[in-house]
């Protein structure tokens, strides 16, 4: 079992080495020309290093004690306790810590703000204006807002009268969405609430393949969901809820989609 001997230099005059027959690290000290060697009784490198330093300090302390006893001339060598103003040190730590925190926070602002929607994204996502004066009663316009088709319907007098008759056929009566004489325009997201297909506009009042008593509304060709002209969902179809209403407001003859009233 010949272990490779090695020598580890720590500081000038301080080193660790290993010996053939010993599992332990050995320490070597050269203190002002005087050589000291001994086994440090450990196989751990880090521990050996600690022991070596402790041993060196021990030898130093001993030599100081010796000179202490011998005479007065070496007194200036005796270690003086450094004077530390703890209060000042603490104040400096706190102020520099605070300054550091402020700096980090200030630097964070641009980086976090960069994640907000850019001007381009804001422009694309901004509210959309639509002129209602050209929309005839019974007609529907599709306006794109935030990549979603928005249905704008100008309800006819007939539709306004017919819609309350459907209250028994829809899941959610939601009377607030019904059109009236002062509220003739219905604004809806043109996305089926079942699986996001596009429902088709069928304002005609006539028997249809999907409903013999059709009073006009939206029909989704994908899975057969039916909605009335106010976007209310019929009972017994796959779509669970009414067509969504996007935030919108009216300003005279202009419809603004994307701004809540």
């Amino acid at each position, binding site marked *: 079992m010949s272990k490779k001997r*090695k*020598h580890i230099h720590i500081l000038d005059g301080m080193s660790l080495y290993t010996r053939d027959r010993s*599992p332990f690290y050995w320490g070597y000290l050269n203190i002002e020309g005087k050589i000291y060697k001994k086994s440090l009784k450990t*196989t751990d*490198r880090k521990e050996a290093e600690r022991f070596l330093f402790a041993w060196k300090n021990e030898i130093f302390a001993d030599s100081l004690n010796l000179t202490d006893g011998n005479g007065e001339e070496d007194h200036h060598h005796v270690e003086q306790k450094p004077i530390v103003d703890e209060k000042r040190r603490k104040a400096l730590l706190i102020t520099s810590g605070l300054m550091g925190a402020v700096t980090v926070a200030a630097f964070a602002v641009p980086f976090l703000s960069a*994640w907000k*929607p850019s001007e381009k994204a804001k422009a694309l996502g901004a509210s959309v204006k639509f002129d209602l004066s050209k929309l005839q009663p019974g007609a529907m316009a599709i306006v794109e807002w935030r990549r979603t088709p928005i249905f704008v319907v100008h309800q006819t007098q007939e539709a306004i009268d017919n819609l309350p008759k459907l209250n028994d056929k829809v899941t959610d009566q939601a009377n607030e969405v019904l059109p009236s004489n002062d509220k003739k325009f219905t604004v809806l997201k043109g996305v089926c609430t079942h699986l*996001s297909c596009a429902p088709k506009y069928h304002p005609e009042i006539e028997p249809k393949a999907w409903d013999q008593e059709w009073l006009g509304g939206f029909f989704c060709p994908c899975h057969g969901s039916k909605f009335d002209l106010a976007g209310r969902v019929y009972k017994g179809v796959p779509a669970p809820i009414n067509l969504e209403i996007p935030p919108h407001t009216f300003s005279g003859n202009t419809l603004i989609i994307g701004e809540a009233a």
Partner: protein
Amino acid sequence: MSEKENSKSFMSSMMSWIDRRFPVTENLERHLTKHPVPKKVNFYYLFGALLMVVFMIQVITGIWLMMFYTNTEEGAFASIEYIMRDVEYGWLMRYMHSTGASAFFFLMYFHMFRGLLYGSYQKPKELVWLFGCFLLFLLMAEGFLGYVLPWGQMSYWAANVILSLFGAIPYIGPDLQIWIQGDFVLSGITLSRFFALHVVVVPLLMIALVVFHIFALHEVGAGNPEGVDIEKHRDSKGMPLDGAPFHPYKTFSALPAIGIFFIVFFAIVFFAPTGGGYLIEKPNFEEADFLKTPEHIAPVWYYAPFYSILRAVTFGIPFLGITSKFLGFIIFAASIAILFIVPWLDRSNVQSIRYKGIYSKVAMILFASSFITLGYLGTKPVNELRTLIAQICTIFYFAPFILMPIYTKYEKTLKVPDRL
């Protein structure tokens, strides 16, 4: 003095020149050739090494994919097709990366289950466990971000589901969601930032945590299935009697495992890269369409258990303004967060499940079976029965942890042997 002994050959003098300036030999000895690990462990202890292998596969294939990928809304999907069809061996890079993601989770789950079984989180290994839990969290984030990049239908709509969870947070939610997306809808802007996070931020954090994980492990020493402390009995040189140096004993015993892993891994890469829709879902071969939601949005298998927990919460707390969606998000987050505190929940006086009492064993069986059941349910569309089962399994997922301080303290344990 002993400098002469070292100058025997050029190599050894070179090594000592370096060691004087950079502690190569010292660290090799500390972490490999003299680092003692328990002699007797079982196959569960191979997953750590395999995880390192998979991590390397992901980094290397990831760098190569990055050379061909385009991180824009218009170009992302087409660039994946380009990698698949036109780049030489591009298909291999991509399928290794996508299969690697699944392998990463598979190994991670077993690696952590090993930890739960054999108490690899107990004092003084708490930090090893904590770093590992952070790695799981980062891996989940990394996987999610990476899944968005191909910009397929499932990339888009699954990301929508997850991002809308942030939107469900009361008060700050909607603004937070817009901030994360950088747009009012999930768009190319979101894709670009997810790309940066996926290829730089999260991998850097993961590398740092892997280093912490291993440093912490080497400080406290690896465990074993018996829960025996090998440090107690040492030979005259200080080497544990039940231990062997990591290198060459463990490194070489890991090689066959890596070989077997590669056989399975490449069998999937070559013959079933989509895993029947579980590894890469079918809708993801279609480009993201803002106006067309897929029939059924399901996560990849490795998120399925957590997605199931999310969906199992069908009720909110109305008087606190907490919707069912937000409560689901909280419970979902808690299902991962609870793993972090396991070291402080276990009050047993033994480490290994082999010496723990019957309650611990039942708890582990309940936990594992509910995790698997939740995983199965997460890939299926919901119905009433499935929701009920998922709710029961969610309780069984949490119960073993929540009740751990009680049953581990009072159950009867067996005496742990002195030697391995």
